[in-house]
């Protein structure tokens, strides 16, 4: 039994203990194997895994309701009108606790800074004032509708509408639209906006406000999938992202990282993902080409591409003369011009060793990159496989007496397969940055086991379907699917635990 099996076993036992309190003691028989296994399965389901995080998916309606609830709450506590409570909350980026605390300390300062004047006697409404001249359009009509915020700066209805429409429609501004007067920092509140603009603009304004509600809130994030309108709530602060990979799943089935918004990248932590992507963008193609087409000068390590001519090379930079074939110094080639037979001479071997060393880090990167890219590519192919599988499922319903529900095992298998490929892909980015120690061996064992299982499942799914063998195939696929899923769990669990315990050492600074 290998190391990771032990870990698996251990985590089973842990869960036993966790459950003991909840389970009926009488049912629990320690030395009965089957019973033990049975409890384990239940326990494994109930227990929250280390690599999983709690999250809630909110629809637009939910987001609106949440905002309303918070606004009402604050408005009740502080005894101010709802539109003012909303402005304050937006100023404090929806950090209710901090707002209330600061408000209790010094309400005047908080109100000033947030641009709110609470004057309950003054609710925004249009009034006609004889002799009024609007400072903006210079209109002085007798029956001009005018509007002023609590700061008292009064302008005509028309100008207000133009101004707000410009801000909302053209500039996409919503939560910080200031009074039109110069140097006045009073915010135009929700009620005033509703009063002054037409229905379309108001709708746009609400949408923008909802957007900022999610954007401003540390624990909310929009699902990044195209045209998906759900937002995820997850209480993992940015500061924990070096020890947790908070993968969440939207109701639209898109799986992504709550920390950075990137598609699910377990087990790699966000900062490594960022570094890796940047590295790949900068380096991978170039590195591949360099590796395939160039050699290095034995003296100054300049990268040299030989695009013609003979084997007698002279480095442009340091003028070192060497042989392209054996990499040894040219001076030792004596009279055997243009026909190198010195491959095994000591100086040549040394020169090539030198070369090999300097190329090792490049090779190391390519090793991880190629595997990373391979799984990415395979995942794409798996999407094609998914279509094939659908066809296969139809076939199975026709050729056997299996019903739709019974052939769902194939769909499930493909789902798991794609998910595992994603995980595997990111294990290579993770491994690239890992510093080698005993822990890395465990990690690599887990990685290898998952990879083998994934390839086996993949192969199984590509087999042609024969009517008489369907039952057998189903059994095999089912078994493999469960096994692959569990290998993924083992790997993720161990990595996540390691991150929490700071067990992994990285070659780069993950705090920066």
């Amino acid at each position, binding site marked *: 039994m290998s190391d990771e099996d032990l870990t698996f076993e251990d985590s089973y036992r842990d869960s036993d203990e966790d459950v003991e309190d909840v389970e009926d003691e009488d049912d629990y028989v320690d030395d009965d194997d089957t019973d033990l296994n049975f409890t384990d399965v239940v326990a494994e389901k109930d227990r929250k895994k280390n690599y999983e995080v709690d999250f809630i998916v909110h629809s637009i309606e939910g987001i609106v309701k949440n905002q309303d609830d918070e606004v009402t709450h604050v408005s009740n506590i502080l005894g101010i009108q709802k539109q003012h409570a909303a402005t304050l909350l937006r100023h404090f980026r929806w950090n209710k606790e901090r707002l209330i605390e600061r408000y209790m300390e010094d309400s005047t300062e908080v109100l000033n800074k947030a641009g709110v004047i609470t004057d309950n006697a003054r609710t925004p409404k249009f009034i006609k004032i004889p002799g009024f001249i609007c*400072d*903006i*359009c*210079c*209109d002085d009509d007798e029956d001009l509708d005018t509007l002023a915020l609590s700061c008292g700066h009064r*302008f005509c209805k*028309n*100008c207000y509408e*133009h*101004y707000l429409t*410009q*801000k909302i429609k*053209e500039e996409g501004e919503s939560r910080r639209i*200031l009074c*039109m*007067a*110069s*140097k*006045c920092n009073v915010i135009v509140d929700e009620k005033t906006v509703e009063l002054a603009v037409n229905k379309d603009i108001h709708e746009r304004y609400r949408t923008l406000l909802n957007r900022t509600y999610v954007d401003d809130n540390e624990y909310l994030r929009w699902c990044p999938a195209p045209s998906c309108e759900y937002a995820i709530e997850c209480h993992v602060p940015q500061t924990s992202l070096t020890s947790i990979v908070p993968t969440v799943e939207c109701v639209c089935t898109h799986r992504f990282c709550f920390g950075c918004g990137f598609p699910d990248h377990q087990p790699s932590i966000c900062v490594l993902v960022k570094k890796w992507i940047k590295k790949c963008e900068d380096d991978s193609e170039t590195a591949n080409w360099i590796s395939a087409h160039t050699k290095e000068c034995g003296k100054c390590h300049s990268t040299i591409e030989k695009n013609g001519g003979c084997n007698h090379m002279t480095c442009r930079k340091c003028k070192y003369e060497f042989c392209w074939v054996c990499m040894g110094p040219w001076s030792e080639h004596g009279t055997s011009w243009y026909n190198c037979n010195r491959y095994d001479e000591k100086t040549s071997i040394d020169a090539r060793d030198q070369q090999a060393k300097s190329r090792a880090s490049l090779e190391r990167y390519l090793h991880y990159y190629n595997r990373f890219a391979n799984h990415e590519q395979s995942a794409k192919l798996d999407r094609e496989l998914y279509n094939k599988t659908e066809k296969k499922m139809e076939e199975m319903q026709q050729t056997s007496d299996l019903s739709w529900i019974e052939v769902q095992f194939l769909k499930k298998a493909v789902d798991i397969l794609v998910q595992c490929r994603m995980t595997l892909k990111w294990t290579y980015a993770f491994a690239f940055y890992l510093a080698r120690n005993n822990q890395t061996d465990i990690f690599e064992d887990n990685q290898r086991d998952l990879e083998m299982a994934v390839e086996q499942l993949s192969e199984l799914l590509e087999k042609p379907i024969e009517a008489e063998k369907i039952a057998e195939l189903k059994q095999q696929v089912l078994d493999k699917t469960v096994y692959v899923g569990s290998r993924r769990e083992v790997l993720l669990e161990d990595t996540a635990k390691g991150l929490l315990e700071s067990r992994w050492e990285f070659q780069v600074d993950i705090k920066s």
Partner: protein
Amino acid sequence: MSALFTKRLSKELVDLKINPPVGIEVTEADTFKSWKLTLDGVDGTLYAGERFTLEFRFSPNYPMESPEVVFTGNIPIHPHIYSNGHICLNVLYNQWSPVLSVRSVCLSIQSMLSSCTCKEPPPDNNHYVKTAKASPKQTQWSFHDDSV
């Protein structure tokens, strides 16, 4: 929107012509797209005796949106004025308010010149002039000198 735009600019123009502020004169206002005004250096300041030309360009969203204001021709040497004529003044950008006008902008610029104690270009002038867009409104200004 254009009704407001033309009404407002005609009123401003009439006001500037009937009741011009000291040292400020409209020289060219044939369209509502762009105006030219001259600005005289105030006596007793570093710019006394000098005359500068300001160009105002208006978008149809004026006065909800700020006008584009640059010096043309003879450009004053001032720590907040770049040699391409761009002016670093917050009311022209993020502190713009629709109640501000051509008159108030000219007065702000005049007072900015008057309070200057040392005629020198902005420290980053060369770099800025090389990289700046044609319109100063496309520059992300940061305002760090509150003394003017």
